[in-house]
């Protein structure tokens, strides 16, 4: 009898939820670089999704959550008005999750940097090809999606978040507001904005940013 599994989820956040790339099997010993065993990885807490109501299409393997949707995942928290996710027939991660209307995502990466992401629509895609996990969240819609973190606020018509390496890519109508002190130039962590840069609307900007590499934008 086949085992039937599920998802995700993450939702988001899982949507992310599921977002554990190159995850270590919980409970299994992990070898350190010197080959000695270390303590087992504790089981990953479940991802929780709360909503006012929900529809489950058990033939189409689709779940739609409506009203005050909240996703609480170890790696992120998400809220929105509607969330749709596939329900894999044979278990495992959902391959596609769509969050719509007033999407807010708060995440913390493994270096402790927090990102506050907002948008009208977020589409989470998960796939594994040739043993490589691809996991992205694409934000679009009006108002323009944006990412806010310790460095400042960045916005664009389309923002792609690569969950595997925690990199954000910005496409079209890129706009950045740096916080004072970012990069050490101002010598303070004051949240006062010091610089705004607008890129031409027709330009397709692709500016990667993560905790270890400063934005490629030339200020």
């Amino acid at each position, binding site marked *: *009898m086949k085992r*039937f599994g*599920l998802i995700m989820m993450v939702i988001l956040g899982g949507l992310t939820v599921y977002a554990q790339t190159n995850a270590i099997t919980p409970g299994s010993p992990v070898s350190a670089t010197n080959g000695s065993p270390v303590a087992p990885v504790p089981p990953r807490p479940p991802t929780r999704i709360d909503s006012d*109501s929900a529809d489950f299409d058990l033939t189409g393997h689709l779940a739609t959550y409506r009203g005050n949707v909240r996703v609480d995942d170890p790696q992120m928290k998400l809220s929105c008005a509607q969330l749709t996710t596939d329900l894999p027939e044979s278990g495992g991660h959902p391959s596609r999750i769509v969050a719509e209307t007033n999407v807010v995502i708060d995440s913390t990466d493994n270096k402790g940097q927090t990102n506050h992401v907002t948008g009208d629509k977020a589409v989470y895609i998960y796939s594994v090809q040739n043993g490589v996990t691809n996991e992205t969240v694409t934000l679009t819609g009006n108002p323009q999606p944006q990412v806010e973190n310790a460095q400042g606020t960045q916005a664009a018509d389309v923002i792609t978040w690569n969950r595997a390496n925690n990199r954000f890519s910005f496409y079209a109508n890129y706009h950045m507001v740096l916080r004072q002190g970012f990069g050490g130039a101002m010598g303070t962590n004051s949240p006062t904005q010091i610089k705004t840069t607008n890129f031409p609307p027709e330009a397709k900007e692709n500016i990667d940013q993560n905790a270890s590499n400063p934005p490629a934008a030339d200020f």
Partner: protein
Amino acid sequence: MKAEIQKLKSGWPAISAALALAVALGVRAQPTGHATDFTTTEYYEPPHQQQVKSILSGAEAQPQPGGLLIIKQLKLRTFGLDGTPEKVVTAPECIYDTQGATASSAGPLQLQNVDGTFRVEGEGFLWRQTNSFLTISNNVRTWIEKDAKTNLKP
């Protein structure tokens, strides 16, 4: 499971004669009494009409006017085209409409897949048997585990 499905295919032997009569009479009758071990089966559309799509069962069924049944200890199981158990829905009680093939309740229910990695709880639901569509009206909570914890027996 195969034996159970074969049993169901052979003509609902699990349903008592009294319950069958009550259902057949529908609106015209004011049925009384109750039956135990209620079961009704939904099959896939052709060309897979031999494959069980879902089995709705209850420990007790009380006939009501209008072709309705009050089902106690509802258990709903869904299956893939290959017979693989997929989801299990349980609820303490519901009203089953034999004519519309729907089950509904204002009370709680729980939905989960067979390996326990996906679990949903909520209050108030409507199950449409013909298209396997479940709506939960209030206070929906879902837990998703990365790893299977249980292997429920369908």
